[in-house]
């Protein structure tokens, strides 16, 4: 039976691997969330703030992608980046970059969909109010983004939560290589399979702590928006 002191020793002791795993996880999650936010929020503003004929179809595709199974995303990215794939020459497979790409494929639709839902509620009211006082449509878009800013932060944090907890896609394209592409989720899976429950539990605690901090931030932001 693993004792609490053993777990704490693993977390704060001299073992470099655990720190490496945590750092790789954070690096990958921050990078993929940042890229997804840069892509997803403008797309969400565009989609939620405009009406066009194909909008229902685009929403159906987006909702499908929001529920994309991670292993499918991992498979697609793996086939693209593998040596025989169209992007094989880039030699990205089994790198953190490949893991970031797979996560961007997974998270961008989620951020886009959530941002579009937020914008679609506020944009018509803001657009009409802005037009009524003589502001240009471009100014109305800027004000819409400004008015949705706190919900956007909440959306990005939701994306980060998804990124840090993801296992299937990063395992496929990253390969769980020690000191290179091993992250918390893939390490927990591996250590559990090997019967090293102490390390798995220690990593699980760190993952839970990070998730708790993220959820606290999301709740705090939602409370602020609710009060505003």
């Amino acid at each position, binding site marked *: 039976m693993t004792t609490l002191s053993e777990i704490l020793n693993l977390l704060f002791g001299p073992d470099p691997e655990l720190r490496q795993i945590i750092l790789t996880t954070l690096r990958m999650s921050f990078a993929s969330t940042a890229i997804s936010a840069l892509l997803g929020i403008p797309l969400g503003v565009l989609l939620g703030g405009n009406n066009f004929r194909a909008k229902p179809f685009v929403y159906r595709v987006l909702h499908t992608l929001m529920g994309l199974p991670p292993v499918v995303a991992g498979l697609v990215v793996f086939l693209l980046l593998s040596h025989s794939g169209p992007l094989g020459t880039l030699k990205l497979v089994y790198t953190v970059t490949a893991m970031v790409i797979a996560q961007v494929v997974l998270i961008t639709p989620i951020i886009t969909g959530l941002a579009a839902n937020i914008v679609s509620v*506020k944009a018509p*009211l*803001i*657009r*009409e*109010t802005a*037009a*009524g*006082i*003589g*502001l240009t449509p471009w100014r109305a878009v800027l*004000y819409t983004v*400004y*008015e949705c800013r706190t919900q956007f932060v909440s959306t990005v944090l939701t994306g980060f939560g998804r990124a840090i907890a993801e296992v299937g896609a990063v395992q496929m394209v990253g390969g769980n290589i020690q000191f290179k592409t091993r992250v918390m989720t893939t390490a927990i899976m591996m250590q559990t399979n090997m019967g090293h429950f102490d390390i798995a539990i220690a990593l699980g605690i760190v993952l839970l702590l990070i998730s708790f901090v993220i959820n606290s931030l999301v709740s705090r932001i939602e409370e602020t928006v609710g009060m*505003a």
Partner: protein
Amino acid sequence: MIALQDVLVQYNERVILDIPELQFAEGKRYGLIGENGSGKTTLLRLLAGTLSPTRGQVTRMGADGMGYMPQNPYAFSFSVLRNVEMALDGEAERETAAREALHRVGMDELAHASGSKLSGGEAQRMAFARMIAKPRRLLLLDEPTSSTDIKGTDLIEATLLDYLQANGCTLIFSTHSPAQALRLAEEVIFLDQGRIVEQGPAKSILEVPQNERTQLFLAHWRI
């Protein structure tokens, strides 16, 4: 000149508004009355340019001299003062004009409150302050007192009449209340299912309606 010629607005084959011809004279006050879904808001949105007709032509003045207050005006999360100043972009003495407009709607004390924390009635008064913060040639108001109490309604109506007199501005507003139409409008346009069924001087239409639909609508308002 503000005019509609052979205008049709359709949504999924449903006719929302069908007006063969309508003209508004400059400097006059028009009240649009009718039940929910009669086309009042659609007509105002056409005149404001936030909606395009399915067919027909709308002649309107440029956005510069026009102010349009939608039924649910948005209160931005910055201060009430800044909310009003938004309507004065490019104007000199913005803050003074915005404070003056807020004073006229009895909101001096709320100038630094957040717009998103206002009640429905306060948000409507703030939106009205945006309208009167500068001289305009046309005011389009969609149910401007739907969320205000009696005191707020009296204040908005009195301020509006003063503003119109001072600026020689055209007013087109919608309301559910025939009494309000009688107080504010010189001419009334009664809409029913997207069509104009009666139009004329406010007093004669509201006191002696000729059309059956108008009579039925007004009968609901008599105690």
